[in-house]
């Protein structure tokens, strides 16, 4: 009997060691996302005997190098990505390995972002978090300047007026900064009435787009927006404007929900808060988005990779992730039930609510935001817009020429 037990134990251990696999996970983090994922993955590792080799990298690596790795056949098994639709051809379809009905129920709103443009019902990734663009405001500056903040429903023009006063009262370099990418630019452009597409075909420059472009160039010309922002980048380069908000150069930063944790940790010398997304004639535009965890079809352990993602996407874990990274969950059940964010400051809690409300407003008043997020070549457009708008700001091109060039360049970039 003893011998049989020993033999059975030996066989069990051997089978575990034979089946156990290690998957490589390339993870980037804005704040502590990968640290939290690592904590969560240890439970999966203990329960399955498999292991996850985390490689925590900068966002640039995922943005600029991952696709080359995928093409060269040296891709990881799993990665955390933001270019959701753009890398579709490399994704592993999780459908055979997961409960499709449960995924559709819990993540049905975001699953299309990962799919091919048409006729694709695959399940490719777990949307770890929803992000929404929106402005952060330096409350201390408004108080010091004696300026009342515009109320919810105020337009971008109202905010510009208020920021002009804050700037002049406090002698600031500028009032408003925006990250240099069309991802941040799109929300205000939607508010001014830009449609961005017609029947799924990108048509960027319409009257709304032109109106906001004129306003945006004007804000730079009058000094409301800083020369260190958009004009300080050449070509399609992305530029983060957070340092300008952190060092008090500006009183408002048009960024997004992913900066909450960062600002909560790093801003200690002034009060700040997230304000409702400003509106306009076209609605109250904010860009939804976020990042997700996908597995790649080159993985040698597709079943293990799929099992890992499936495990992490379940309500309990998704809730833990959202709560501990101070993010908005994409899990539709949790969205209804609400997430309890333990130990978060009042401003983070309020910020999360404001961003969630921004996402709702955008869905109602500017649905083109959701189309743009799901468009699989949106990353090319993110770079083209700043390239030419910057030239209009610096006077290298007239605004008319810049807008004509944007249309022509987008058409050429998406022609295949």
């Amino acid at each position, binding site marked *: 009997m003893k011998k049989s037990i020993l033999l059975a134990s030996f066989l069990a251990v051997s089978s575990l060691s034979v089946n156990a696999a290690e998957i490589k996970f390339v993870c980037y983090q804005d704040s502590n996302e990968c640290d939290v994922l690592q904590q969560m993955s240890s439970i999966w590792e203990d329960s399955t005997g498999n292991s996850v080799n985390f490689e925590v990298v900068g966002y640039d690596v995922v943005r600029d190098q991952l696709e080359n790795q995928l093409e060269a056949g040296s891709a990881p098994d799993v990665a955390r990505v933001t270019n959701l639709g753009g890398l579709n051809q490399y994704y592993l379809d999780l459908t055979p390995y997961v409960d499709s009905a449960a995924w559709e129920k819990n993540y049905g709103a975001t699953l299309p972002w990962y799919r091919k443009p048409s006729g694709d019902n695959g399940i490719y990734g777990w949307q770890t978090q929803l992000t929404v663009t929106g402005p952060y405001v330096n409350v201390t500056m408004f108080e010091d300047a004696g300026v009342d903040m515009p109320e919810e429903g105020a337009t971008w023009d109202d905010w510009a007026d208020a920021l002009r006063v804050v700037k002049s009262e406090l002698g600031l370099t500028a009032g408003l900064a925006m990250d240099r990418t069309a991802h941040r630019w799109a929300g205000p452009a939607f508010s001014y009435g830009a449609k961005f597409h017609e029947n799924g075909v990108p048509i960027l420059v319409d009257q709304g787009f032109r109106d906001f472009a004129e306003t945006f160039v004007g804000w730079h010309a009058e000094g409301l927006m800083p020369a260190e922002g958009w004009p300080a980048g050449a070509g399609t380069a992305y530029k983060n404007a957070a340092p300008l908000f952190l060092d008090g150069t500006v009183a408002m930063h048009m960024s997004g929900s992913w900066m909450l944790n960062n600002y909560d940790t790093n801003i200690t010398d002034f009060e700040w808060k997230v304000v409702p997304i400003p509106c306009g004639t076209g609605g109250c535009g904010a860009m939804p988005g976020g990042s997700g965890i996908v597995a790649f079809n080159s993985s040698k352990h597709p079943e293990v990779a799929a099992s890992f993602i499936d495990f992490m996407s379940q309500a309990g874990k998704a809730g833990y992730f959202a709560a501990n990274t101070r993010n908005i969950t994409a899990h539709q059940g949790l969205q209804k039930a609400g997430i309890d964010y333990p130990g978060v400051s009042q401003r983070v809690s309020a910020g999360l609510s404001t961003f969630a409300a921004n996402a709702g407003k955008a869905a109602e008043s500017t649905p083109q935001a959701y189309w743009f997020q799901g468009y699989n070549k949106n990353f*090319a457009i993110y770079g083209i817009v700043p390239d030419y708008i910057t030239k209009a700001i610096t006077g290298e091109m007239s605004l008319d020429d810049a807008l004509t060039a944007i249309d022509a360049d987008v058409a050429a970039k998406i022609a295949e």
Partner: protein
Amino acid sequence: MFESLLNLNSWFLFFTLYLLIGFILSKDVYGFLPKLMSSIGWPIEFTQKLFGTKSLPYLFLFPNILIFGLFTFLPLFMNFGFSVTDGTSINFVSRDFSGLDNLARITQEVQIDTGGINVENDKFNAAMYDTFVFVILQVPIMILIALFTAIVLNREIIGRGFWRAVFFYPVMLSPVVVAFLWTLILKRQGMLSQTLIDWNWISEPIQWLMDPSWTMFWSIFVYTWAHMGFYMLILLAGLQSIPRDLYEAAQMDGTSERRVFWRITLPLLMPILLVVTVLSLIKAVQAFEELYALQVGWVSLVSYIVENAGIRGQKTFFGLGIAAMASLIVASILIILSLLQFYLTRRQVKL
């Protein structure tokens, strides 16, 4: 710990075995020292016996050729391949042959895929024009300053060694460090703007690196500052190779300093000056690192290539092909400049 790392016992065993093989193979060699040398160098002697003396140099060159081929020639051919194909992939199997379409995309007024305005042509032309302006201004300015500095530092001045080190020092700095240092000075709230405001020379701070009126000036200034030391050193070596007796003879004849410079120094320095000119021309056409890190307000040819190649952000279907075609055009310019350098160097040797 170290013993386990180096595994001394194993090394000793291998070395003994190595010597033993050498000892057996050198059985025809007599005398202790020749036998010991043959035992140590047996792989060379054995290879020589196997392939003959004529093939031996090629055998030694093989590793270098292999590395050179893999990392220089293979990318060269791949680049040519990219320039005549379309697609986002770097794998040729997934790319479509497109002939000279990419050349048309960067040179024609009409976009061949959409029939609309071709902005790629404008971007490429702008990069060519701006790079041309940069090269035409930067090279003569840098050579004149390098020549002047070399002449001054060739004289018997106090602390000559120190000054030579000071002028050469920027060459040793990484381009990113150079850019970082100058960004601190030239950004809007940087030292330069603040100083000029304090002196009431300007009322508003200026973003020197991005301002269209200033970006080229500061690009040339910083690039010259960073590279001038290298060319100064070559010119200094050239100045020191001019025979002293020529100067002594001129001095005895009472020739003026200016005449000595125009009639002795410059003519004898001319071959080196020409080589320096061509070298700096090539380097200026390739300018990228400092300009990229400085985030200047214009796009150089190399930046244009990097921008299109899909190295940053999402790749586009034609981007890599366009970048490869543009790089072939840059390569053609560099080949012409290199041939010029080759010709001048040969001419110098003959002189």
